[in-house]
């Protein structure tokens, strides 16, 4: 298996090391995860799957908890 994998974050290709979480990839790309109900941009808070601030759309599935997901080759990640 290759040590690096390529995914897209908001349409931009990003090459990351295998084992990186999707939340870490979003932060590395300088993107936010979601927009709050009053319009604030949000990024990860707890890093352990309880706060739900890291929700984003992954491969078309909204509300994916990106801090508990590993990056995969060809994954499409979009801020929500």
């Amino acid at each position, binding site marked *: 298996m290759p040590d690096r994998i390529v995914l897209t974050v908001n349409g931009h290709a990003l090459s*990351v*090391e295998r*084992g*990186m*979480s999707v*939340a*870490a*990839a979003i*932060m*590395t790309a300088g993107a*936010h995860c979601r927009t*709050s*109900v*009053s319009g*604030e*941009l*949000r*990024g*990860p*808070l*707890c*890093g*352990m*799957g*309880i*706060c*739900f*601030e890291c*929700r984003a759309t992954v491969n078309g*599935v909204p*509300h994916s908890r990106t*801090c*508990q*997901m*590993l*990056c995969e080759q060809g994954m499409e990640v979009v801020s929500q």
Partner: protein
Amino acid sequence: MRERYDILVVGAGPAGIAAATRAAESGKRVGLVDDNFAPGGQIWRGAESASSDIAASWYARLAKARITKLQGWRIFSQPAPGVLRAERNGDYIDLGYDKLILATGARERFLPFPGWTLPNVLGAGGLQALVKSGLPIAGKRVVVAGSGPLLPAVAAYLRKHGARVAAICEQASFSRLAQFATSLVTHPDKLQQAAVYRWQTRGARYHTSCRPVAAHGQGELESVTLRKGSREWTVACDYLACGFHLVPNTELAELLGCAIASGNVKVDEWQATSIPGIYCAGEPTGIGGLELSLMEGEIAGYSASGQTAKAGVLHRKRDKLQKFADRLEATFALDPALRELPQSDTIVCRCEDVRFAAMAQSSSWRAAKLQTRCGMGPCQGRVCGPAAEFLFHWRAESIRPPVFPAPLSGLTEKAQLHTV
């Protein structure tokens, strides 16, 4: 083929690993279910290859033990007595058990202050978890703030990975910490660990009686204003890692009816909860750190599998560690002045964007939920609940299923029964 585990352990942090490993020594069928992508919990996250001797020895025991490991599954409901339902990426399984050991760990306590919802303001453990899962931190300026023994540990970890730690801000006073340090003479290993962290974070100021009063930035964090006494100053930074010690994850225990005392799951000397056949170990019984979690896990594993003599041998050691936990709690008790951190327009509930002023008009947690929707979002009050408890002296009320958000189909449809 069996349809039940003799012993099911929920949570694969240190307490869960110790519980499952010791229970498996009895020859009983043991299952270990955890919602992260690898075992180790928060403290040993990403530690499998290079970490402490203590982690390595437990990972080795875990690898050798006959345990069914279910990684990445998150338990969210109890469809029938003795059965728990778990979800992973839209799939469901039901896990049956005769005895259950809850080792669900703890989370950080977050307190709201202006700017705390900006991207790149994270928990202290939160930022560490992101770095452990690949976030590059080399050359980044970080302020570590809040409270608890986690702060120097996180600061040391981040610095080791190339971060420039600008300041460490602990809300507890110097005199409290000095008393705590003096009491550690009976735990020389912990004193040595503290000295190591201090050395690893040399150059970064460790401020006591210090708190973040505002985070600033347009769209993302640019700087943070800190206060110590009457002095305020602003530090430019890329990340603010801020958590105010820990709160136990008691939601699943509460859902199953286990009695709670002072916010912790109530257990007897065998780690048995108030519900027959359900045990609890580690942080949910009270924040006590790694060694106590391991010890409680071992006792729970032995007790649940009928190896009571082996469990009894560990009681004295556990009691000594419990005294350390009691001191920990007293040392890092929150300064009442932290209640002044939020301004009237500061968001307290991040899921529903409920601001301090709206919540302050309510008379109870229940009233606030009904009137403002605070605590009604996907985190189900795990972030704003402990904050509201501190800010307004409210107690959260009964837990309702599911303990984590799940699609309706996960509650109504039958799940596949996991065969052992």
